[in-house]
């Protein structure tokens, strides 16, 4: 077991290091640590404008969301992992050729990913905060506590989505029944007690009031869904040959006014037949955003409802931009390299497909706007969501080309990603805090977005086709 685990760790390392070098990958957690370290010195300043309690909620919500976004292991039963790196044969699929139990391999695979995420994202924050506390006089208990509670927040998110995606892998209907049931429980709780269910989040309670009982409870919230998910996991057994109706021709016909219709049609077919359009929409979009909404609602004493909604619109825009990753995970450019296509043609088609997918965030944010009783601000909310989504998409294209899920762990890429997104969001966050209608100014983001896409296309056209 240990041998397979360490080999999987090595394999994951090499997937990234062959793309952009070991040093750039190794520096990624160092960068997170440095940001946390510097953030410690800013805490006294932040406290003057934002209550510490709200900051704590936001950080925990972010880590919970990160867990949600990476935890859809249950979709692996449908070979998502195999496709993610094209023709690469990963150890996770060794069960086919080695005398190993698929569930055993899968458990180690999940464990490996958890360890990676811990050392890439969670431990560096705690370490940076701990080192910073030595200089700022913050008691050592706090950084250790936050390391524990952030780990638990992340693991809770991961384990819940792992469970939900595994349930989906077994039966889509069972998932919907479960989600409706859970939604009713949350709604009932909210209606009868008048308290936000997010206040029940064990890691948050643990942060404010450490006790062994709550720690145990937090661990159970992580372990129980995770164990059920592992039990639900079923390896994807090669099905008998199944015939499918031809969707290419009608789709090309429907999309013929858009650039590169066959490429966009292929994206749509990939998303639909792989089950990703439903799976990713639920696990990487709806679930994280709904939970984030509950957490943001806790800030309503500090932030007015409309500013909360506009902040949420920007977060929705950022999450919506990750739909680009959904589109790039099925193939690499090598699939297209046999054909008379430039990298820029494929990127253009991904933007077309991305645009088709934007109907999901539009519908979602419009619903949230009306449900929160602020329908009159629908226009700035929509403009801000879409502008942020396209802007972050443009940054991703420029920095990562057609490999967003791998190159994002290049420290240089990540630093630029943070800077470009942070800069734009600070400006628009400040503008909308002055007047909600300034959200309309978000449309200006499309200018740098256009420029970044052009720059990205030129850059990736010059790059060689990489092996994955």
């Amino acid at each position, binding site marked *: 077991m240990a041998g397979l685990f360490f080999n999987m760790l090595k394999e994951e390392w090499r997937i990234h290091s062959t793309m952009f070098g070991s040093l750039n990958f190794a520096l990624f957690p160092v960068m997170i640590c440095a940001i946390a370290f510097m953030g410690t010195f800013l805490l006294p300043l932040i406290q003057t404008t934002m209550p510490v309690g709200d900051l704590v909620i936001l950080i925990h919500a972010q880590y919970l969301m990160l867990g949600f976004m990476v935890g859809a292991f249950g979709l692996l039963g449908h070979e998502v992992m195999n496709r993610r790196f*094209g023709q690469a044969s990963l150890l996770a699929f060794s069960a086919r050729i080695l005398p190993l139990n698929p569930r055993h391999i899968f458990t180690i695979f999940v464990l490996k990913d958890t360890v990676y995420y811990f050392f890439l994202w969670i431990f560096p924050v705690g370490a940076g905060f701990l080192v910073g506390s030595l200089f700022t006089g913050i008691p050592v208990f706090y950084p250790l506590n936050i390391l524990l509670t952030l780990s638990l927040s992340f693991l809770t998110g991961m384990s819940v989505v792992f469970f939900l995606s595994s349930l989906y892998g077994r039966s889509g209907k069972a998932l919907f029944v479960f989600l409706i049931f859970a939604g009713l429980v949350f709604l009932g709780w909210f209606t009868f007690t008048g308290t936000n269910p997010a206040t029940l989040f064990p890691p948050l309670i643990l942060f404010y009031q450490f006790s062994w009982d709550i720690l145990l409870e937090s661990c159970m919230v992580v372990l129980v869904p995770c164990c059920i998910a592992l039990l639900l996991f079923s390896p994807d057994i090669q099905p008998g*040959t199944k015939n499918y109706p*031809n969707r290419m021709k009608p789709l090309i016909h429907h999309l013929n006014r858009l650039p590169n219709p*066959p490429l966009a049609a292929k994206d749509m077919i990939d998303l639909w037949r*792989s089950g990703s359009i439903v799976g990713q929409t639920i696990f990487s979009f709806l679930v994280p955003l709904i939970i984030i909404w509950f957490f943001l609602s806790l800030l309503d004493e500090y932030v007015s409802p409309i500013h909360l909604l506009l902040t949420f619109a920007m977060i929705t825009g950022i999450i919506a931009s990750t739909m680009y990753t959904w589109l790039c995970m099925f193939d690499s450019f*090598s699939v297209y390299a046999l*054909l*008379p296509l430039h990298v820029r043609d494929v990127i253009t088609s991904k933007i077309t497909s991305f645009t088709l997918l934007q109907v999901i965030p539009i519908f979602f944010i419009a619903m949230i706007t009306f449900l929160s009783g602020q329908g009159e601000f629908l226009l700035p909310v929509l403009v801000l969501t879409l502008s942020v989504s396209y802007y972050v998409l443009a940054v991703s294209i420029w920095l990562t080309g057609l490999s967003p899920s791998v190159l994002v762990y290049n420290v240089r890429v990540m630093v630029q990603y943070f800077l470009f997104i942070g800069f734009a969001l600070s400006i628009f966050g400040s503008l909308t805090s002055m007047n909600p209608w300034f959200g309309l100014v978000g449309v200006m983001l499309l200018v740098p977005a256009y420029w970044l896409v052009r720059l990205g296309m030129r850059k990736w056209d010059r790059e*060689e086709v990489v092996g994955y």
Partner: protein
Amino acid sequence: MESIIETKSLTKKYGDLTAVNAVTLNVRKGSLFGLLGPNGSGKTTMIKMLTGQILPSSGNAHVLGLDVAIDPVGVRTLVGIIPEQESPPSFLTVMEYLEFVGDIRKIPDLEQKVDWWFDFLEYGDKRNVLCKDLSRGTRQKLMLTQAFIHNPELALIDEPLINFDPIMQDKVKAFFVSYTKQGNTLFISTHLLETAEEICSEVAILHVGNLLYTGTMESVKAGNRHLSDLFLSLVRT
């Protein structure tokens, strides 16, 4: 005779590793050219450079008169390619993939051409099956179809027969020979020496990135010598 492929000191380096070292080569129109070499000799890298999938580190290559480093898409418009690892997109059916290729290459009368290939390679019953569910042999048939369906005057194929049964191998070999007799050119890379000896009109031998031999099959066979004798004598020294 007119050169279809012309390389001058073509080199590819990956860090300290030289995958292809200063290869100068001419492939004449109408020839069935076999690039031979053991595993890791640089054959695949050579094909990738000739089709503009990767850029040379130095030297140059012209394919059908186009510089592959300057106009790789122009080259890929004119040629047919089958890579070493056949990789049709997973979630498209066979027919959808061929329509996808047909639309990108703007092929007229696609359905008639597809039907001809289905009949010839005997896999029409798989037209609505997802590419990911195909056997390796059927995938190879699909890749062969996509490479030739636009009737290119040059096709570059990495290990063309390796996934076929002997009956299909015979059929495909006969197709290759008749294809070149029509004035088209075929550039195949293989380590199956018997196949190369049987169908190739010209061969080149590559070993650890270096071009050790190039010549016609007649010159290889001079003095009752077999291709395998020449190959082994060059590679083992």
